[in-house]
């Protein structure tokens, strides 16, 4: 498998070319099976499907027996390069040991069947493509059976399949590879019987990742590892304040460096920057460091974190645009002050900081272009490159490269990184240009989880349950000023209040409103989006209420949940059942609980914490998950073990991006510090609720629960409530 994967990767460009030739040659000499866009992907209320380009496919049965399955998503850690092929291979009855997976280039056929663009986001890869990949597998199987039945002059009903072989009456059998050529000439069946879940052989099993070995021996190529003949490396000097532009520059010392080829100004989404192009990264970096740039920073905002907090907190005292208004707005006034809680929260800007710095490679040949991008938003990135180069999107051949993380950062609506690469490639016509954002560019470059202030007033009823709830959220809108702005309803960007406005807790008088200040700091979805701060607020307050009511935190939550919150109830039950975390908690440690539902997946966790070196030490997490059918329980386990660790980012002492006089005060991992091994949970036990329901996502749902659970444990140890992030020294 390892050698084959490497071979596939090396010959990727050539073979894609071959695939297209072969498809138009209707089979040709080599055995290939192609399937068109599934019919169900064209249904619903989306725009009518556009022309399919290129005529690529999902399944390629090779004559050596290998089955190449194309993955319509970026692989950047979440495991879809394994789990999507599992789904197709299962319905197809393929021999899993012979399956190879590859990432799809940009093409209409690979668009998300629900979202209508090619992308990874919203934890939708499995949720949206489960049915699609099952259908594709089942139809492929039906075509192989039809070919075998024809060959043997028997009815398809008399044939069965197993491990890439069709079996017929009288001990007849034929391998898929032998049948593929004939099968490719069969019409694609409009309907094919899907397996009964009891017939699944691969789905639901713990299957190891297909991309492990090449990621452990250094052979897997990420976007940043790309090397093309004659390729140049570009680095851009960005303005120190968002929106600034180049007024003048002196590049004499920069150009004196060996290997530096070009220095020129390029427009940015806002303002402008200076691009340095060199033969190698190091020369480009040295040259950029030596540029003398006179920046025009007039007429633009200069954000300052302390001023922003003051204005955000002031705003939080006034009602904003109404997200939810349920029950009596005056109910609070009837509750005595001693039965009220007033809580103010602070959440800073957060950078995604994926391990692989941002990059994009583009070659422009005048009437065509080719791009290699680790992209979460292939459709947007391809369109942006085409726009910059004056081409149609289909004139840009777009390769999806493996990405070293992303967490939302490679899903930008303005496609600013590929856009910069295209602007530079346009000037260097014919030369492939790899644009690299250094870590400093990444940390200082914006597109952050927005900072937020929350102000919550809760009136507690005689039963200890919240009787009235007033909640004001302040934070920049992710969607304002983008083509998705039409999703803002009544001045409310749902991504700012998700997890609060749609809470599963039953509060009779419940009022949530939001202010969206506008500011020149670019903001972006950060793994689990609005749930990062909303779950923290909800789950710390519910914990406080439970403590005040002297009730068990799980029992309190169960009592408060709405009747239809079945998934959340199921995970709380499972967490209670796996009760080892309750007993034998060593001295100096405490257990905190939190639960939250996001992206259709419910999660509950119990976290055992102590304080070491003034920081929380997370010894053990017990986590219960309901994600519907777990397609690959091993992936679910991994996503939860590590996703909880990712969620610790917002507790880190240096887990904040801050501004002074318009400038970002951090520059690299020394100033903005994500969790290292010592900060992450030592042990994580993952328990999955058995379910036959449609699968839901696992990429984002682990993130929101961990930080509230940790501070709920800290509250038991110190008696204090923690409402300001990042978490100060304890």
């Amino acid at each position, binding site marked *: 498998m390892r050698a084959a994967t490497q071979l596939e990767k090396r010959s990727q460009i050539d073979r894609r070319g071959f695939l297209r030739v072969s498809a138009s040659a209707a089979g040709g000499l080599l055995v290939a099976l192609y399937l068109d866009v599934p019919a169900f992907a064209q249904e619903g209320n989306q725009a009518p499907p556009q022309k399919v380009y290129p005529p690529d496919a999902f399944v390629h049965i090779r004559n050596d027996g290998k089955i190449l399955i194309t993955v319509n998503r970026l692989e*950047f*850690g*979440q*495991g879809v390069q394994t789990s999507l092929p599992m789904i197709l291979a299962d319905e197809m009855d393929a021999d899993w040991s012979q399956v190879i997976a590859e990432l799809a280039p940009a093409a209409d056929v690979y668009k998300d069947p629900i979202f209508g663009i090619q992308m990874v986001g919203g934890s939708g890869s499995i949720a949206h493509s489960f049915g699609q990949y099952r259908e594709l597998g089942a139809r492929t199987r039906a075509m192989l059976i039809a070919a075998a039945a024809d060959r043997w002059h028997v009815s398809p009903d008399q044939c069965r399949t197993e491990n890439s072989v069709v079996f017929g009456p009288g001990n007849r059998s034929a391998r898929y590879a032998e049948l593929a050529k004939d099968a490719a000439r069969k019409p694609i069946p409009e309907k094919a019987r899907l397996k009964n879940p009891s017939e699944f052989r691969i789905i639901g099993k713990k299957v*190891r*990742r297909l*991309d*492990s*070995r090449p*990621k*452990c*021996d*250094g*052979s*897997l*190529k990420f976007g*940043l*590892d790309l*090397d093309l003949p004659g390729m140049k490396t570009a680095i851009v000097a960005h303005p120190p304040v968002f929106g600034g532009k180049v007024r003048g520059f002196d590049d004499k010392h920069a150009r004196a*460096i*060996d290997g530096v080829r070009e220095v020129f100004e390029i427009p940015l989404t806002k303002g402008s920057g200076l691009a340095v192009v060199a033969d*190698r*990264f*190091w*020369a480009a970096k*040295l040259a950029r460091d030596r540029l003398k740039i006179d920046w025009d920073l007039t007429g633009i905002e200069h954000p300052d974190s302390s001023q922003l907090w003051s204005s955000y907190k002031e705003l939080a005292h006034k009602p904003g645009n109404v997200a939810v208004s349920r029950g009596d707005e005056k109910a609070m006034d009837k509750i005595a002050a001693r039965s009220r809680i007033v809580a103010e929260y602070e959440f800073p800007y957060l950078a995604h*900081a*994926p*391990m*692989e*710095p941002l990059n994009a490679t583009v070659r422009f040949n005048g009437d065509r272009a080719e791009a290699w991008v680790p992209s979460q938003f292939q459709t947007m990135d391809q369109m942006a490159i085409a726009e910059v180069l004056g081409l149609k999107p289909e004139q840009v051949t777009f390769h999806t490269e*493996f*990405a*070293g*993380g*992303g*967490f939302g950062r490679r899903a930008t609506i303005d496609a600013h990184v590929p856009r910069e690469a295209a602007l530079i490639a346009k000037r260097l016509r014919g030369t492939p240009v790899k644009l690299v954002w*250094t*870590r400093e560019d990444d940390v200082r470059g914006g597109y952050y989880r927005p900072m937020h202030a929350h102000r919550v007033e809760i009136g507690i009823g005689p039963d200890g349950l919240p009787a009235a709830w007033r909640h004001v959220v302040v934070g920049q809108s992710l969607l304002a000023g983008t083509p998705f702005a039409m999703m803002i309803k009544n001045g409310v960007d749902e991504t700012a209040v998700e997890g609060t406005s749609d809470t599963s807790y039953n509060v009779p008088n419940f009022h949530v409103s939001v202010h969206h200040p506008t500011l020149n700091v670019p903001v972006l979805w950060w793994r689990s989006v609005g749930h990062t701060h909303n779950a923290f607020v909800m789950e710390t307050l519910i914990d406080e209420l439970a403590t005040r009511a002297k009730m068990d935190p799980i029992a309190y939550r169960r009592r408060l949940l709405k009747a239809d919150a079945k998934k959340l109830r199921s995970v709380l039950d499972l967490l209670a059942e796996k009760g080892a975390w309750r007993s034998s908690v060593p001295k100096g440690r405490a257990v905190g609980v939190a639960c939250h539902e996001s992206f259709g997946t419910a999660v509950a966790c119990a976290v055992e914490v102590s304080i070491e070196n003034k920081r929380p030490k997370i010894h053990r997490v017990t986590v219960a998950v309901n994600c519907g059918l777990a397609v690959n329980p091993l992936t679910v386990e*991994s*996503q939860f*073990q*590590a996703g*909880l*660790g*990712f969620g*610790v980012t917002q507790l880190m002492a240096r887990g904040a991006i801050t501004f002074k006089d318009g400038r970002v005060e951090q520059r*690299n*991992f*020394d100033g903005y510090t*994500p*969790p*290292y*091994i*010592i900060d*992450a*949970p*030592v*042990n*994580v036990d993952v328990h999955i609720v058995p379910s036959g329901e449609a699968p839901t996502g696992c990429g984002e749902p682990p993130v929101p629960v961990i930080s509230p659970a940790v501070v709920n444990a800290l509250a038991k140890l110190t008696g204090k409530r923690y409402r300001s992030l990042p978490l100060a020294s304890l």
Partner: protein
Amino acid sequence: MATYHLNVNGQRKQVNVDPSTPLLWVLREELNMTGTKYGCGISACGACTVHLDGIATRSCVVPVSLLNDRPIVTIEGIGADPVGRTVQDAWVDKDVVQCGYCQSGQIMSAVALLKATPKPTDANIEESMGGNLCRCATYVRIREAIKSASQQLK
């Protein structure tokens, strides 16, 4: 520009680069060995970890001019070492990787740890692996894989 002779994975290599060029970029761009990763450039993340004289070293801050003929081992060469191969196999067996970008550096640090401390405690692991950032936070499985490799090497 100056010419340097390097000893990489037991092979003699010649490169012609600026003396300030970090070993990381010599490996990646002159020798086309891209398994060693760029993550931060300031030795804060460990993605660029190689073995220099057998010691886990951040290649992003070691200029080529300081290397001489000291032996360099990278992720591409560590599989030839029995401990290295065992650690890589444990990583695959425990399904450690997610995005995988940091794992070259994690593996190089883990091999150095196990060579010095064949039976590491959690505290040893936290100390030796403490500078290797994994943004996916696969740390639970990294611990498991190190302990598993340690068992295998008994």
